């Protein structure tokens, strides 16, 4: 198999556990969008035009309450601010790509695709660092690093497809997965599996703890602004600790 294809498939596989959790979310979004008075075609289109779950949820609420258009746009923008951080964090891994690829890949930069890809990229880097300069790096590892954009694309495209399908299911069938199955919890669990290996030094652990606590206490703030504030303070704490060590 060509390395591009096998990396693409690895990316899809890596995002699979998350997809289980995304399905009920997509369906609930579809149901809420219709309840808010959106046309089926609009509800579906939003899932590919905006393609950002939590902001779509909040948007349906605002649309249902006939809030002013610019307020809806503003809210979606603020809720999606964290994507700036993802963009900055993942950018160094895409520097060798053409502009065309960069424009294409940016579309798939969701929480889930980011979490899966960055965990993979960092692990690859660690594996590569284990080799001494001049030592021969196995072809398979080299290929995995060279074609890591295909891994990301697999994760992003897998998520995108399921988001579209589950939105459609919500629109046409309603939420057919009972809430009592708690499948939405697989989302948090997958993120736990991806974040825990990043606690590889004291600074990272402290950055995570500070960000987590602030996010919990600022949870009531509108626009998910607490999340962005928490991330910035956590990152700053990490940088300060790293410098002092």
């Amino acid at each position, binding site marked *: 198999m060509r390395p591009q294809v096998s990396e693409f498939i690895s990316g899809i596989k890596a995002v699979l556990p998350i997809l289980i959790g995304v399905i009920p979310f997509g369906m609930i979004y579809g149901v809420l969008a219709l309840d808010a008075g959106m046309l089926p075609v609009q509800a579906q289109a939003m899932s590919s035009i905006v393609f950002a779950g939590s902001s779509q949820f909040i*948007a349906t609420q605002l*649309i249902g309450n006939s809030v002013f258009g610019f307020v809806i746009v503003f809210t979606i*923008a603020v809720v999606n601010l964290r994507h700036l951080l993802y963009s900055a964090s993942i950018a*160094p891994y895409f520097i060798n790509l053409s502009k065309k690829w960069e424009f294409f890949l940016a579309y798939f930069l969701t929480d889930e695709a980011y*979490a899966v890809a960055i965990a993979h990229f960092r692990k690859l880097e660690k594996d590569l660092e284990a080799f001494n300069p001049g030592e021969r790096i196995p072809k398979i590892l080299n290929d995995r690093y060279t074609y890591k954009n295909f891994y990301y694309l697999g994760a992003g495209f897998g998520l995108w497809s399921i988001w579209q399908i589950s939105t459609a299911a919500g629109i046409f069938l309603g939420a057919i997965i009972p809430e009592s199955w708690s499948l939405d919890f697989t989302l948090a669990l997958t993120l736990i599996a991806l974040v825990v290996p990043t606690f590889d030094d004291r600074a990272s652990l402290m*950055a995570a703890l500070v960000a987590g606590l602030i996010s919990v206490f600022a949870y009531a703030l509108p626009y998910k602004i607490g999340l962005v504030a928490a991330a910035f303070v956590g*990152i700053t704490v990490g940088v300060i600790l790293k410098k002092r060590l």
Partner: protein
Amino acid sequence: MNLWLIMIIAGAITYGLRLSFILLVGDREIPGDIKTGLYFVPPAVLTAIILPEVLYSGDELQLNFGNFRLIASIIAVLVAWKTKSPILTVAIGMIVLWVLLAFFV
């Protein structure tokens, strides 16, 4: 404002946020402090997403053992720490949650 127009503007902004640094960074070297900062983005942002998700039920903070998702999450953290396997972490976390729900609800 027309709903289509709202969607297109909001979608363009969201896409712009995603594209921003990927496009800007190009092949320039990133300054040291920012590079250090970026290293902490995954632990900080992902933890900030997960923790409220697990600790809140609706608008209420549930810091007690009646919060089954919290118990399942603590076990999931241990599994992730030991195995580094997403599949095992998700599987064991879900089983713990289902068992708790089956026996205590």
